[in-house]
């Protein structure tokens, strides 16, 4: 089996720490803005799950591709997305990634290989498989990582897509973010299997489970899966076990879980865990604090930019439907 040979350097880890802080700060800010009624529509926050996107994207090459989900801010930031264009999109501005046409659930950045967030649970996976098919037909070396939630594995789209990837032996990694719930539905109520990677075997592909709050474990697991895909070894399913700290979306009374459970998981904060690793490596707390502060500042700057940016012109819409 292919293994990630080299452990990440401290410089890499520090960069990833910054990324995770940017994800955290961005979604905390979004939460605040929604609570204040300053953003339209709805949103799904990634707080608590940062190590998954950050770990997987740290393994990917810049030219590799991802598909994302409704809970997609973290994916785009981890892949190298622009906070300003994200903020502008959330505020419905012309400078946003989608010129205000998409909003929180529809951020894509073609230039960095993010083929798009998705409002339809499960639909990122067939798209990822198609991208992988294109790469394979074009004999290009890139791979695709498809982020997907634990809730998405019961959709037909998952099933059909993973099978096609398996039968055609395509360079794709399915990254299942098992954050324990699909909206109000606990994994145990949606599946009669103990681990989601059990599903991988049904398609004849490897499945690996990892601690999604442990960045190094995520990187190791994604490293193995991405290396296999890149080496022509076909798809892998990765299950990253993690937890969503916030409600499912803007409005969620969270009647389906206890405060204690949430509190318990918050003790396993992936950002703090990485901070501990860096501290153990001798990085000064001040340095880490400065990185976190810089991340927050970047987010503040992005939203300040977005607030002052102009709104889109509806007159452009009809011409925007067809390419």
């Amino acid at each position, binding site marked *: 089996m292919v293994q990630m040979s080299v452990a990440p350097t401290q410089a890499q880890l520090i960069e990833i720490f910054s990324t995770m802080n940017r994800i955290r700060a961005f979604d905390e800010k979004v939460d605040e803005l929604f609570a204040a009624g300053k953003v339209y529509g709805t949103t799904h926050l990634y707080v608590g799950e940062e190590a998954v996107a950050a770990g997987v994207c740290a393994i990917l090459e810049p030219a590799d591709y991802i598909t994302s989900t409704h809970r997609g801010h973290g994916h785009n930031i981890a892949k190298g997305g622009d906070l300003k264009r994200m903020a502008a999109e959330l505020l419905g501005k012309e400078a946003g990634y989608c010129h205000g046409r998409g909003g929180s659930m529809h951020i894509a950045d073609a230039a960095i290989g993010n083929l798009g967030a998705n409002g339809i649970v499960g639909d990122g996976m067939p798209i990822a498989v198609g991208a992988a098919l294109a790469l394979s037909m074009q004999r290009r070396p890139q791979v695709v990582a498809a982020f997907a939630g634990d809730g998405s594995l019961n959709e037909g789209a998952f099933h059909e897509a993973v099978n096609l990837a398996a039968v055609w032996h395509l360079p794709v990694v399915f990254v299942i973010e098992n954050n324990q719930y699909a909206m109000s539905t606990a994994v145990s109520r949606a599946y009669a299997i103990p681990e989601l990677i059990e599903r991988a075997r049904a398609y004849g592909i490897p499945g690996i489970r990892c601690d999604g709050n442990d960045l190094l474990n995520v990187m190791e697991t994604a490293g193995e899966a991405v290396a296999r895909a890149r080496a022509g070894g076909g798809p892998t399913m990765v299950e990253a076990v993690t937890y969503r700290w916030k409600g499912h979306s803007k409005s969620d009374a969270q009647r389906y879980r206890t405060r204690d459970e949430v509190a318990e998981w918050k003790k396993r904060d992936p950002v703090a865990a990485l901070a501990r690793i860096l501290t153990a490596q001798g990085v000064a707390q001040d340095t880490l604090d400065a990185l976190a502060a810089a991340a927050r500042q970047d987010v503040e700057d992005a939203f300040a930019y977005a607030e002052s940016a102009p709104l889109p012109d*509806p007159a452009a819409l009809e011409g925007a439907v067809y390419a």
Partner: protein
Amino acid sequence: MSREITYAEAVREAMAQAMDADDRVFLMGEDIGVYGGAFGVTNGMIDRFGPSRIRDTPISENGTVGVGVGAALLGMRPVIEMQFSDFVANAMDPLVNQAAKIHFMFGGQLCVPLVVRLPAGGGTGAAAQHSQSQEAWFVHVPGLKVAMPATPADAKGLLLAAIADDNPVVFVEHKLLYRVRGDVPEAAEPLPFGQGVVRRQGRDVTVVATSLMVHKALEAAERLQEQGTSVEVFDPRTLVPLDAAGITASVMKTGRLVVVHEAVERGGFGAEIAAVVSGGEAFSYLQAPIRRVAARNTPIPYSPGLEAAVIPSVDDIVAAVAATVSGG
């Protein structure tokens, strides 16, 4: 006896009364249990009816509707909530290729008393994949019935009728209507399908509007009244069966027709109404072209200003009616 409740409460009440009266009725959907559904429509029902009859499903729209068909074949009366109308695209096959055809295709041996509730429409900032109005697809599928209530009372009465119907019914609810209040009878009284209602009497022009657009049309009619135009607002309430006679009678009286719906114009239900009128008895009474007021032919965008520009407004209706009345 009636009292004022919201549209969401009316939908809930219809389901609860149907479940009280008939053991065969049960609900399926994503997060309809403790969560109460994405729009709170099933709030509290699980406490009263338990998790077997208020049945949370995994995220499997296709499977859920297919399972609903199977349960209906054995005499159950499933009511399925799509979390958003948009996701019914995942369930077109069981709805169209199974539910709609089974009774006919098997020579009448079986029937499919199934209701699929669709929280439809935009105006919530949920963008292209969470704001669609897809009723026209179902109108085009023989074997399905389609209801589209605009008021709490109609929501209750039509849903009771839908649940009692031995055929599959697509029940379209508009998200922005859920909080609208209105007088609703306490008793469980089904409203017959195929009977439209004149929401406002008028002389100069007929406006046929559906769902949320009924309210916008009434608002437009108020304004137009001030300008001296008398608008008749007709709400068909069910699209299949359609009260073609009611629409025809109104147009024969006014001589002019404007059709208003939120779905995109091209291929929308407004086309069917235009065809019914321009192909029927009312044709020779028409004094002006039939205008359609509908969403622009684009996906629904996110940004509030963009979204508002795409979805028909009261202003759009006023303008279309004015043009219809003044143009000849």
